[in-house]
Every structure is written in C-alpha cells, then in structure tokens.
C-alpha cells in the first residue's frame, strides 16, 4: 500500500512509518540498506560545478575559518558555542533577560564542551553530532561570509596533523553528503604555516586549545612531533580557579571541589582579555633590582573584573600581577622539578627544547632558526617571548647533549644550587645567557649561535642539504646571504589558512586528495596506508584538470598523515 507508483519512481523513496527511525548514535552500525546512490538524490549535474573557486577551510577545535583560495585572509570565522546547538527558530539567546543556564550544561564534567567542535578522545564523542556541527558552521559561513550558492566546489581542508581519523571521517562524511564537493584535499596546518612563512623547514609551536604541539618540518616534511596537554583549555580552567579563589568566601563551597562556580564563557573571555605571561625571572637578585626601577605605583596596579555568572553579580578587584598566575600554572608549573612531568604534560619550554633535542644535528640547526609560534594561546601577551627565553636558557645550560642525569636536572631546576651569578641585564629582546654555557655556543647580536651546529656532532648523522649546496655553488642566488642556521630565531607566518591559500593558489599539491564518489563508497576504510600508495598516482596538482585522476581510475588514495591509524 505504501509503494504506489509515484512513490517508487521518485528518487527519494517515501518511507513507511515503520521505517522512520532515529538517527543512529555513534558506534552503532546503520541499517543495512543496499548502497543506494546518494549522488542521485542530492547530487547535481557536473556542469553546474563552480570550478573556478576553491574553498579553503581551516578546522580548529573552537572555530572554523573559511575563504577562497588566493585570498590573503579568510572571509569569515565561525566560533562554536551553545547557540549553534539550538533548534531552528529558537531565538532565546537574543531574548532580553535570557541567561544561558551554564550550570546545568556544565554538569558531568562538560564545562565548556558546547564551545568545542570535538574532543580528541573519540570514545566520548558523538561522531554524528560532529558532522552536524561542521555542516551547520560551514552553511553559516557560506551564507554569511562567502555569499556563495550551493554549486559543488572543490575544497582544501587545513587540519592539525594530530586529528584522530574518526573525527576527520565524520567531517568528511557530512560535507561530502551535504555539500557535494567533487574533491576535498587535506593539508596539515604545520606545513601550511611553513609555506606561509616562506620557509621549507620550521619548528612549529602550536599553542592550541586541546594541547600544545611542536612539529618539526624539514624540507616540507613533518619529521617529528611532540605534544603536551598544556593548552588553552587548561589556561581557561586555571583562570577560573584564580577567579574562584578571589570570590567572597563561604557562599559557594570551596574552590577546590572541582565544581565550577563561574561560566566557561566568562572565564574564557577574561583569559583572552586579561591573562598575561610574566617574563622569565633570572635566578639572581639583579632582576628584582631592575624591576624596582619601574613605577612602584604601576606595580601595585589592580584590575576590576565584573562577574555576572556567579550566584549574584559581583566585581572582583585583584592585583594585575595575579593575572599572570593562570599562565604560569598552565604552561610552566615552575614549582615542580623538570623531571617530575610525564611526557604528555611537559612544560612548554621543555617541550620545545626536547623537540629540538631529538632532531638530527642538521635538521635541528635549520629548524631552531625557524620557530613559528601559532595557535590561540600565542595571543597571551608575553608568552612567546617567555618560551623563547626559557628555551634559550636551556640551550645555554645543557647544549644538545641528550644524556642528562636526574641529578643534573635537579641542580639546574633549583636556582639556589647554581653557583654562577646571572648575567647582567641585557636588552629585553635578548635571551638571557648565563656565562657558564661557553662550551656550547656564544651570543652575538642578540641571538644565540649554537656552536655545535657548524661541525657535525659525533652522534648525529651528518646530512648535506642540497639547497645549500646549490646555493654555495652559486645556483642563481649567490649574491644572497646563506640561510640562517644554528641560532634560535622566531619568524612570523601569515598563518595556516593563508599559507594554504598560497599553496593552493600556486597549484602546489595537498597531502591527500579525496574524491567524493570514492569516499561515499568506501569511507575511511577505503584509504590505503600512506606507504602503500604509488606516489605517481597519489600526487596530483590542484590545478584545473589535474585532480584526483588516481582515484577516479580506481587507483589507491590515502588520508595522508591522518590515515596512519
């Protein structure tokens, strides 16, 4: 009775009531319907493609940035938040007097979750919901900022290389089904950042939301990566704890009970506006004396912070200096010795130092002069310089000797045990160098020169750099100075989104290009492991006509670094 002629002839079959089912939750397998061609139900004839425009999407945990290839900057940015989880037509966020009930939303350890697209621990993630959120955010961006119609367009996604495959897969499923891009190319954000800085090698320090990731890029290849859970989320948690500590006592339990007493939104806002990072304090008294030169009145400055999400609106007044505490705890934790940290919770300067330490001599010499700070927390005033200075000091104290006894670390971590007086005050942009480090290098012109970088160390494999050899041979640019190596130096990138825009515009290729039809058929399971792929087939230009011939002809394709499950 339900299969009338009309119903069976329409491409979207009408369903009987019995077949209407709830969307399956994550982890459940779907109904075992035969592979019905989805392209026929939502697809458009290929003649309707908008082939000239490539859309670049940069995915972050808290925001999406969207724009056109070739543009210097994204056209729009969509932040994730609870208002995006509402039904259509639910305008309560705009109603006067409405206040988001953050307390009930934060129950069960989900304080701030509504402000994130995903968590990397995929066991606790509803993958279908991730797909829905990506779809809604993209749709909003396309309508509000891109002003584009719904013709299928090729896309380039810029992603952190640590993104778990199930999350990537959920996002690809959603976007391939809903927007029909003929292809989606994937580019890792550290690579895009290197392109956006004009370098082929770099040490990318991504002070992100979930974690801080240090990626070493050598000759456009990710050669090493290290991560620490110290990131933006931890900074906002610490900001909450600081504010909670200063709230009037006795009204709402003790601050230590892990219960949140202020809303995520408020704490995140204050972290972005007021939290700052102290400069590195040197061991001796000199620094103190120096600081006394500053206006004593300025030093005792206080900040008034009105809070609305507490039990009753209140205004805190706390010393400005206290607002550097969240940063200290979240990123440095100086009260503990450096040996007491697990590998995934290293303080940031140690994370950067160890990342450099593990590299071979040549790679390290190149990367250390191309440090790129990026990520949301690179906006914490003073944090980049603090990390840079701390790393400089570690290099001076330890050099690049990977063998380091616990006793030595303790000695170094405890300023009182150090005999050498700290060096005299120096210009503010100079890494403070202790004279005892003479055996490792020297300081010239305000930058640290690593002496061991010039002659090859005994335990590292010396590697010749073809570019440099060519440069030495006078290959076209002999008039230019040789690339800077062996000294710590930070450089600026136009950013991952803009780097990807450059790379795409110049028709370089992405890490992996996925064809829509192939994805709809096989999903992530169809991806070969990266090293099984014939690169002749895999590598395709993003230029017109050069897309994904490999997969179209049934060749192997990969998810790039994301496919290594």
């Amino acid at each position, binding site marked *: *009775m339900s299969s009338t002629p*009309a119903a069976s002839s329409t491409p979207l079959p*009408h369903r009987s009531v019995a077949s209407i*089912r709830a*969307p*399956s939750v*994550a982890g*459940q*397998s*779907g109904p075992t319907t035969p592979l019905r061609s*989805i392209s026929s139900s*939502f697809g*458009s004839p290929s003649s309707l493609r908008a082939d000239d425009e490539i859309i670049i999407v940069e995915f972050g945990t808290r925001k999406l940035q969207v724009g*056109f290839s070739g543009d*210097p900057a994204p056209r729009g940015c969509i932040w994730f938040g609870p208002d995006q989880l509402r039904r*259509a037509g639910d305008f309560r966020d705009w109603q006067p007097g409405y206040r988001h009930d953050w307390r*009930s939303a934060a129950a069960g350890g989900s304080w701030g979750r509504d402000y994130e697209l995903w968590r990397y621990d995929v066991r606790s993630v509803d*993958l279908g919901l991730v797909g829905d959120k990506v779809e*809604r955010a993209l749709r909003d961006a396309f*309508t*509000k900022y891109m002003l584009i*119609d719904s013709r299928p367009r090729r896309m380039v996604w810029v992603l952190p290389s640590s993104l778990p495959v199930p999350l990537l897969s959920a996002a690809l*499923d959603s976007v*391939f*089904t809903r927007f029909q891009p003929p292809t989606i190319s994937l580019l890792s954000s550290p690579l895009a950042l290197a392109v*956006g800085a*004009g*370098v*082929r090698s770099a040490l990318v320090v991504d002070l992100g939301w979930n974690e801080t990731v240090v990626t070493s890029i050598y*000759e*456009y*290849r990710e050669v090493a990566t290290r991560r620490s859970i110290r990131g933006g989320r931890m900074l906002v948690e610490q900001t909450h704890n600081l504010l909670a500590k200063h709230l009037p006592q006795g009204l709402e339990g003790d601050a230590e009970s892990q219960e949140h007493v202020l809303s995520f939104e408020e704490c995140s806002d204050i972290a972005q506006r007021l939290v700052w990072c102290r400069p590195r304090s040197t061991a001796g008294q000199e620094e103190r004396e120096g600081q006394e030169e500053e206006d004593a009145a*300025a030093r005792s400055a206080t900040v008034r912070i009105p809070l609305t999400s507490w039990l009753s609106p209140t205004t805190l007044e706390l010393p400005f200096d206290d607002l550097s505490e969240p940063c200290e705890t979240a990123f440095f934790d100086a009260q503990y010795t450096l040996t007491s940290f697990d590998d995934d919770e290293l303080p940031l300067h140690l994370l950067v130092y160890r990342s450099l330490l593990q590299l071979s001599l040549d790679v390290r010499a190149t990367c250390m002069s191309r440090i790129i700070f990026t990520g949301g927390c690179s906006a914490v*005033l003073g944090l*980049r*310089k603090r990390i840079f200075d701390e790393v400089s000091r570690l290099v001076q104290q330890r050099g690049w000797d990977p063998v380091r006894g616990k006793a030595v670390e303790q000695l170094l971590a405890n300023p009182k045990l150090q005999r050498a007086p700290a060096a005299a005050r120096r210009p*503010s*942009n100079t890494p403070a160098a202790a004279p005892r480090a003479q055996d490792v290098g020297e300081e010239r012109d305000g930058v640290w020169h690593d002496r061991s970088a010039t002659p090859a160390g005994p335990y590292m494999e010396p590697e010749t750099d*073809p*570019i440099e*050899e*060519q440069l030495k041979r006078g290959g076209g640019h002999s008039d230019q100075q040789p*690339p800077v190596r062996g000294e710590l130096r930070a450089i*600026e990138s*136009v*950013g991952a989104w*803009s780097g990807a*825009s450059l*790379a795409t515009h110049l028709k370089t290729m992405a*890490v992996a290009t996925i064809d829509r039809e192939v994805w*709809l058929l096989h*999903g992530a399971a169809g991806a070969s492991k990266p*090293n099984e*792929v014939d*690169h002749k087939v*895999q590598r395709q*230009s993003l*230029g017109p*006509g050069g897309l994904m011939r490999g997969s179209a002809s049934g060749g192997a394709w990969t998810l790039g*670094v994301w496919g290594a499950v």
Partner: protein
Amino acid sequence: MATAFTPYSYIQCPCSDITLTDRRSGGSPTTSEPDGDDHAFDPRAPRSSFSLYPLEYLMYCEDCHQIRCPRCVAEEIVTYYCPNCLFEVPSSNLKSEGNRCNRSCFQCPVCIGPLAITSVETKPDPNLLAAPDNSATPLAGPYALTCSYCLWTSTEVGIQFDKHNGIHAQLAKLRNGGTTRLTAKERKERRKDPSYKGQPPPTDSQDLDHEAQFANLKAFYQGQLADPNAADAGLALLGDLGFSSPTSLSRIMSIYTGGGLLHDKKAKARLGAMREALDPDEGLLVASLDESAAIAKLRSEGLDGTASAAQRLGQAPNLVEPPLHGRERFLDSLRPVPHLLRTKRSKRCPVCRHIISKPESKVQTTRFRIRLVAGSYIPSISVRQLALSGGTGTGTSASGAAVPGAPLEPLKPAYFLLTFKNPIFETIKVTLGAPVTTPGRFASRVTVICPEFEVDANTDVWDEALKDNAERDREQRRRRGESISAGGGGINSANQLEVGKIWERGRNWVSIVVEVVPASLALAPGDPPLREDEDVLEIPMSVRVEWEAEMAGDEVGAAPSRSNSEAREKRELAYWCVLGLGRIRQR
C-alpha cells in the same frame, strides 16, 4: 518563575536520515541494528536540534511530494546587496572587492550602530548624524567616522580622513594610529613600474603587514617558479612523475604522505630548485617577541581598555597590521567595520531541480515570486491543554480549558487537544504513532486516543456551493458525527473521551486527544542536575499522511480541476514531529 509555557510543534525533515556515518560506521557487516518500531526518534538527542524545524521554516517540492528544509535545497543567488545602502553589487565585484560594502557603509566597532562622516574640526551636528547618507557634507576636513549612538569616533583609534568621499579606499591605506601603508594594489603597481624596475622599494619589516607579507610571499614563490635556473634543475627529472603543469610548485614542494622519496637522490636534487624567502621583500618576517609595552598598557588600562568578545568577533579580518598576537584585544585596535553584503536566494529542489522559492530580485521588496511553503501542503498541528473532569480513560468529559501554560503535575494524567488542519484540496488520512513512553531520563507515558483519522479537504466556499445537495448532506452528517465509520474517525458527539474516536471535526480540521502521565523529575542523589529544558514534556510522534491526487506528469498546463477523478494516484508522506506540551512541575 518563568513565563507561561507555550506549546509548540517541530517537524523533522526526512532528509536527516540520509547519513553516511550510520551506514558505514564500524565497517563490520556482522553488527546489526536493533530493528523495531520502539526505536523511536529521540528529540532530546543533541543531533535532533539539527534536523527539527518549525513548520514555517519548511518548503515543499510539488513534483517530488516531499518536504524540503534549509539543508536539502539547492540555492542560487538572485542579488547581492548592501543591507545598509541597498546598493546592488554585481557578482563580478565579489571576487575582487570582497564580501563587504565599499561605499562608505560602516558599522561602529563598539556598538554596531551606523557610522557617519563628520568633520573633525566642528562638533558633530546631531542633524547631520541623523541624515541617511553622507550627502550633507561637513564643511571642512579632516573627517572622521562617528557613531551617533555611543559617540565613538575613529579619531579615538587615530584614524581620520583627508577627503569626505572614498572612505573605504582611504581606510585601507591607514593603520590605527594614523600611519599610512601601501595597499596590495599599490604594491603590485610599483612592482610593474619601470622607475622601480630591478630595484623594488625595500620593505621595512615594520611595513610587512599581513597583506604585504602575503603579497611578497606570492611574488617570491611565483618568481622562483619562473626562474629559468630553477626550472632547469628539475624539468628533465620531473617528467616521469606525471605532474600536470610544468611550472607546478608541486614538482618542488614535495609534500609527501610519508614514504621515502627524500632518500631518493633525484628527488633530493629537485628540492634544490627553490630556495627559502630571505628577507621582508620576499615575505620573510623575523618575529619581534617583546610585548612588554603591550603588557604595560594592559596593566594601566585594565579590563576597560580591552574589547569584548562580541566586539572582537564583529571585526573584519585585519590585513593592515603585522601579526598582532593578542594586541587585537585593545579597544584602540578596533577598526570601523564595513557592512557585510547580503544575498537574495532562490531555492530549488535538489532532486528534480524545480524552483520552490524565488524572491523578487529588487532589493527593496521582500516579496516572493514563487514560494512553496510546506504549510500549504502538510497538515499543521496546534496543541492546547484540556481540563477534563473525572478520572482517566473513557467516559471523561470536558470541563473547559486548563490554565494555559501552567506546569504539569507529575504522575497526574493530563490531556492535550491536537488539532490537525488540512491545507490541501484533497481529503487526507492521518496515521499517528507515538512511543508508549517518552525517550530520555524521565519517561512520561503517552497515549494517543485516536491515532487514525481523516481530515476533510480544504474546500472553499465556491467549491462548497458546487457540490450537489446529496453530497453536502452526507458531508454535514459526517461532520456532526452521525453514522460514518470511514477511516475509523467516528465523532464523539458529546465531547467524551473514547478510544478510537476523534474529539471534534470542522471543515478542514480534526481534533484528537492525547493523554500523558508526566514523569516525576525527582533525582536520585548523585544524578546530574536537570539540563536546560529537560523539564519540558516533549513527545515524539510519527505522522503519516495519505491522500489521492491526480496523476502527475500529464497535467502540464492543464488547469487543476478536481472533477476529473479518473486518473488518480495514492500519495503518502511520512515524517517525525515533536510536540512540546508543557513543563513538568519540579518538586
């Protein structure tokens, strides 16, 4: 406490069950989903928010006989325009000029009010501020952009203009604080300018703002690709790798997916074809890490010197500064916000490509030429609480309406009147299904007293008059509930609750009753607290609508006439809806 609850209904667009994740997840063929009708749609699941729509948000394709929601329509752009000056922007401008109005339409970065051009010398005249455009030109420059609501002025961030026109172009050349810069266009022209040839203006790293760094990098990479030396180094070797373009960066920028190509000698040689950027002219920018000035500023200005989250969000991407790394937080880094352009869109059915919504192209009008709203095709459902005297079950009779919006008592039966109104010119048969208990933490019991009924066609007075007397008699008798059993929708003449009987019937509407026993919201110790709206009693309900209509296809151009009833076909439409009935009282 809160305002009285208003019952509501939402409809789930059927397109939402087409998801790949469901079909493929796990990848193991052995796992099977528990099949069954008790696997009901859960309106509390976070995903449901993305597929539920009020009826007014839904469209309808007449050819596919299917609901279309904003997620399952294909959109085309009719007009691009500025919402402030209503100027229509040609689509060719969008790629080059961007997505914002460049005709002096600016929003206040502090309060999003409109900004007006005023003379800096004279006090802003309130009459001028109120003027709709800048036709009333202030007498003498320099000029500033001023907000008539919060009195913000661009001089607060050190920006003022020499001329009162072409503000957009002038602003692109100004940094906050008043320093001038070269725009991307000017840079490009200088590169081409013969007087600069061979000796491009040296870039100070101070000048290397975002747009300049991007432009310099682009020029640098393009130069590298065009360099004959660089091309020589690779071309012969690269032919066998099958790249599409001989000058493709991909030959050189070896972004591999792994693999050992770096150890390949040939590949290594190819890497030499391009070098790194070496100075600001090539886009290399050494970072300045000293932020002590910004910290001192934060110390002295405190929270009041910083912009709110909403103010930061409202800013257009800042291309005129080098990376700010957090300094964008300061109020004096805010810039006037050029209005985002908007679009008028027509919508097509993605399956049959028929237009289902088409606005008038003129910007000033909000009318539509075509607009097939779902409300004209599928029955609307309105909800009203009934107060019934006596106990549960049959034999209960009405005693007027309950207090509207009052909280529902836990564990005490409550009755709701659902009125289905038929918008189409055919009689429809409606079949409802609802799970016995609502999904979620708090299971309320639900009984649809009459789950199957017919609703008469939406005939108008004219049609009514055309009917012959006998037919009209029969209709009227049926409405009054006399001796008709068709569709199981017998009427309940004394407004008595009786299983299988409808409550009331009108010309094109039918009311039925749903009995609910609200759950108790009592929480065991340790349970998470109630989430927002978790106290709302929402029932998921499947709706199937069946009707007969003329055959599609052979009626092109023919005026719809219902007298020709030979070629008729059965149609049906099925979907989930969600009814919000009321808040359950919390103890």
